[in-house]
C-alpha cells in the first residue's frame, strides 16, 4: 500500500481531507438531486380546477324554428334507455343533450341524474348490464387511485377516447364527483388524471381529450406531457387542424367543434397566440366555405362536404347507416359547432335556415326504429337546434 504523503501523514490532516471529500461529494450529490427534482417538476402534470368551465354558445336565432318544432324534435330524443343493456354511447349522448336536471314522466325514460349514475356507479351499471359484464369504470391496475372508462370495446363501453369525460365536463360535473368502481369509491378527477397521463398530441382520437382539458384546466396555458413534450393550446390547435377535414369521427366535425370551443374560451381567457387564433379562424372559415359550397339545395350535407383540399380532392366517405343517417349526422354537427364559432366564421343566414328547415322536417319523418338506430348523432341535431333556439333542452321539454 502506498505511503501517506504530505497532509495525509497527520491525523488532523487526514480528518480534514476526509471532511473535504465528504463536503464535495455531499454538496455535489445534493445539487445534482436538486437539479433532478427541478427537471422532474418541469414535467409535472397541470393542476385542474374542480368545477369545469362553462362554454356557452355565441349565437341564438330563435326565429329559425318555432318552439313547437323544437319540442317535437326533442320529444323524439327522450332517453328511453331504461331496461337491459342500454348502449353506453347512447347514454353519454343523451346525458350531454339533457343534462342532469332533466326528468321525464315517461316510464322508459331515465332522468338526467340516472343517466349519470349509469356511467359513474358500477352498481347501477351492473344492474343494467348484468353482474358478469366487464365493468365500465375500470380502476387502473397499476395505480388503483386512477380510473378509466372502458372504451372502444362494444356497446357496454364508450365509443371514443375521453368521450365520457367530455360529456361529464360539458354538463358541469365537478372533479370531486364520486365514482363507484368495482373496488370502491373514487372521483371523476381520477379519470382526468389518467387522461392527462396518457395524453399524446399524436394519439388517434384527441378531440374529446382537448375538450376535457379546455373545461377542466382553467387558465393553464402549457404543461408537459408524460412523453416529455410541451403541450400548448397552439400545439393542440395545430393538431386539430393537421388532418384532412373529412378524416376523423363524424366526418371531422368534432375537431371543428373543439376548435370553435377553444376560440370561445380564448375570447375570455387567452390561451392561443394571436397568430394561432388567426390560423384557427382561417381554418374554420375554410371549413365553412366548403360547407357553403357543398350544401345540398334541400339544406343538408354529407360525407363529401370538404371537396378539394390543398393536397387533393377528398374521397367521399359513406357511413354504415345510409345516406339519410349521414345527412342528419353531418348537418346536426355542423350547426352545433357554428353555434360556438366567431361571427366571421358563420355561413350566410340562408345556409343556416335551409339546414334548420331540413333537420326539422327530416326529424319529423323518422320512424321509431330509425330514431333508436341513429340516436347518438340525433342528439347532436337536438342540441344544435336547441342552441340556435337559445334554450336548454330540458327547459323546452318541461315547458319552462
Amino acid at each position, binding site marked *: *500500500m502506498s505511503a501517506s504523503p504530505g497532509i495525509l*501523514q497527520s491525523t488532523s490532516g487526514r480528518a480534514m481531507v476526509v471532511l473535504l471529500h465528504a463536503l464535495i461529494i455531499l454538496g455535489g450529490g445534493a445539487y445534482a438531486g436538486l437539479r433532478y427534482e427541478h427537471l422532474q417538476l418541469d414535467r409535472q402534470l397541470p393542476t385542474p380546477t374542480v368545477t369545469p368551465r362553462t362554454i356557452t354558445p355565441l349565437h341564438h336565432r330563435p326565429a329559425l324554428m318555432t318552439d313547437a318544432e323544437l319540442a317535437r324534435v326533442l320529444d323524439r330524443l327522450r332517453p328511453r334507455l331504461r331496461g337491459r343493456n342500454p348502449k353506453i354511447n347512447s347514454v353519454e349522448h343523451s346525458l350531454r343533450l339533457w343534462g342532469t336536471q332533466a326528468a321525464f314522466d315517461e316510464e322508459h325514460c331515465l332522468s338526467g341524474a340516472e343517466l349519470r349514475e349509469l356511467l359513474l356507479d358500477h352498481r347501477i351499471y351492473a344492474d343494467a348490464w348484468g353482474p358478469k359484464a366487464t365493468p365500465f369504470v375500470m380502476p387502473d391496475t397499476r395505480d388503483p387511485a386512477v380510473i378509466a372508462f372502458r372504451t372502444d370495446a362494444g356497446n357496454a363501453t364508450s365509443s371514443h377516447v375521453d368521450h365520457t369525460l367530455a360529456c361529464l365536463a360539458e354538463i358541469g360535473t365537478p372533479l370531486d364527483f364520486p365514482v363507484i368502481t368495482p373496488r370502491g369509491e373514487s372521483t371523476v378527477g381520477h379519470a382526468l388524471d389518467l387522461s392527462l397521463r396518457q395524453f399524446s398530441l399524436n394519439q388517434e382520437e384527441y378531440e374529446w381529450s382537448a375538450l376535457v382539458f379546455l373545461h377542466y384546466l382553467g387558465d393553464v396555458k402549457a404543461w408537459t406531457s408524460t412523453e416529455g*413534450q*410541451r403541450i400548448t393550446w397552439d*400545439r393542440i390547435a395545430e393538431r386539430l387542424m393537421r388532418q384532412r377535414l373529412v378524416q376523423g369521427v*363524424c366526418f371531422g366535425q368534432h375537431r371543428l367543434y373543439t376548435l370553435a370551443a377553444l376560440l370561445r374560451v380564448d375570447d375570455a381567457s387567452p390561451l392561443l397566440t394571436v397568430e394561432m387564433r388567426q390560423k384557427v379562424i382561417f381554418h374554420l372559415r375554410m371549413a365553412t366555405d366548403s360547407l357553403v359550397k357543398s350544401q345540398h339545395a334541400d339544406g343538408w350535407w354529407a360525407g363529401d362536404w370538404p371537396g378539394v383540399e390543398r393536397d*387533393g380532392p377528398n374521397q367521399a*366517405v359513406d357511413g354504415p347507416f345510409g345516406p339519410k343517417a349521414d345527412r342528419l349526422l353531418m348537418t346536426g354537427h355542423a350547426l352545433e359547432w357554428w353555434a360556438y364559432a366567431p361571427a366571421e366564421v358563420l355561413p350566410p343566414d340562408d345556409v343556416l335556415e335551409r339546414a334548420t328547415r331540413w333537420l326539422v322536417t327530416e326529424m319529423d319523418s323518422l320512424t321509431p326504429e330509425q330514431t333508436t338506430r341513429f340516436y347518438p348523432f340525433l342528439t347532436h341535431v337536438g342540441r344544435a337546434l336547441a342552441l340556435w333556439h337559445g334554450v336548454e333542452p330540458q327547459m323546452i321539454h318541461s315547458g319552462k
Partner: protein
Amino acid sequence: MSTTLLPPPPETVRPIRTVAEVSSRPEIHDGSVDGGIPVRRGVSFAQLIVIAGFCLLFMYHNYLPLFHSDLWGHVSYGEWILQHRQLPTEDPFTPLAEGVPVFATAWLSQLVFALAVKSDDVEWIAHLFALSVLGAQLLLMSAFSRRGGNGFVAAFAVVTAFAIAWSRHAVQRPEVFGSLCFAALLWLVSTAEGSPKTRPGWRTAIGLFVVFAVWGNLHGSFVMGYAVLGCLWLGRLVQIVGTAGFRGLLLGDARLHQRLVWLELAVAGTVLNPYGMDLLVYALAFPGHPNLRAVMEWFPLEMNSLEGIPMAASWVLTAVVLRHSRRRMTPAEVLLLLVFNAAVCARVRMIAWYAPVLMWTFAPHLADIAERWAASSSMWAWWREKLTLPSPRVAAVVVLFVWMTFALSPISRPILGGKPRPPRQVFSHDTPLGLTTYLKEHPVEGMVAAPQWWGDWLMRHGPPRLQLMATTNAIHLLPHKVWNDYLSISTAEGGLERRLDRYRINTVIVGKALQPELERTMTHLQGWRTVYEDDVGLVAVRTRAQRDAPKSVAAPTDSKTLEVGR
C-alpha cells in the same frame, strides 16, 4: 521458479516496469550510452510493424465512406449553432419533436463537424474521423504499454480491443471524440498508476480535469469515464479494507485519496458545459429513454450477434488470462471487468468502452504471461532480438511508409491536390443519392415518411424545408407515440393508411435494403404511385384523384365513423 503455498502479494510477483524503466531503454530512444556501449539509432522491425499497422488503420478509416445516418444530423446541428450563435432548445429540423427540450450533449462535436464541412468539402469529416481513431488507438497503445510494460503485449492488446469492438469501428458520430477522450483517460490513469511516486500527480489531475471538461461538451459518454474512475476508487477502498480492515481507512492511503480527487475533478470538469449539472442528470437518465428500446445498439446482448461473438471470445480470453496470469487481480480490476461486462450485457453499444477497458485491465496480466512464455522459449529470445534491433534502414522504411500513407489517403488532397472522390466513393453505398436529387427536382409538400436512418441525410442534402417524420438524431426527441407510429409505418404494419392519414403523409420514401415489407406494400397500395425508384430506394406519393375503392383505402377512417352509430 520457486513454488509457494502463500499467494503472492498483489502487484509484486514480477516487478512491473514503470514508465521510467520502459522509456529508459537506450537502444530505442535517444541513442545515448548505456554502460559506455554506444547503441544503434533507428527503428526496430517490431516498431515498423506497429507503425505500419497504425498507417493502415488510418488509411482504412480515412477511406471509409461517410455513413448516411445521424452523422448528417450532427453536421446540421453544428451548422444551426454556427448560424444562430446559440444552442437549440428544441430540435430545429423535426416538426413532430416540437416542444421536446433538447440537451445538445454533443454540441462541441457538432460544431467541429460543421466547421469541418464549412469549405463544402465533406471529406474533412472523414479526415477528422481517421485522425480521431488514430489518436485514440495511439493513446491506447501507450496506455497498454505503460500498464503492461511490454510493447508486444500493448500491440496485441490494441489489435484485440479493436477486434472486440469491431462492430463499432465505423461509427462516424460524436462518439468517436468520446472514444478519443476515453483513451486519453486510460492513458492519463496509466501514467499515474505506473508512476512510482506516491503523491498525487497534479499533472494527471489537471489532465483529467481538462479531458472531462472537453469530453462533457463533446459527447455524453463521459459517464463511462466516471465508471472507470469510480471502479478504481472503489477497488482501492476494497483493497484497503480487505488488507487492513476498516481501520486501514484511517491510515490515509494516498492512492485512495488520489483516485477520489480524480473522480471529483472529472465531475467538476464535466460540469463546465452549457447545461451545468443538468447534463450529468440527463446523461445518466438517457439510457432509460423508452424510444431506445427499439434501437439495435441499445439492445441487451445477444450471443448470436455482431457483439455477442466477440464478447464470447473476450470471455475465453478472460478465462485464459485468469488461468495463466500469476498476478493477482486487484479489486479495481475485478470491478472494472464486472461493471463493463454488465454494461455490454445491458446495452450492446457499450462494447466500444468495454474492449479498451478489458485490454487495459489485462495488459499487465498478459505481460506476465508473455514474459514467462518468452523466458521458456529460446526461439522467441532469438526472434525478439531480431525484431527489436534498431536499424536506420528500417527507420527510412518507416518514413516512406508514413509518407505513402499520407500521400495515398484522401487527407493529402487539400495539400497535394488531386481530384475529389466521386460521391459514390465518399458516401456509403446505401446513401440515397439519386433519390435526393429527385426530391430536389420535385419538392414534396407536407410530412414525409422516410427511413429514420436516411432522415438526417435528407434533412441536410434534400430540398429545403423538407418535413420528415423521424430522423436518427431525433429518435430520443420524438414523443413515444410518434416513434411507435414511425416504426409501424416503417415495417408496414396493419393500419398503415390510418397512420399515414393521421400525420397527413402524402409521400413515403422506402429504403429497399431494410424495408422490404414496406416496399412491397407501397408498390401495391391502391391510391399510391411510385414516382421514383432506384437500387437503394423508392418514392411513393398519393394519387387522390385516382382513388376509386373507398372501402379499402379509407377503411380505417370509415371504421371510426362506424362507431358513432353503434
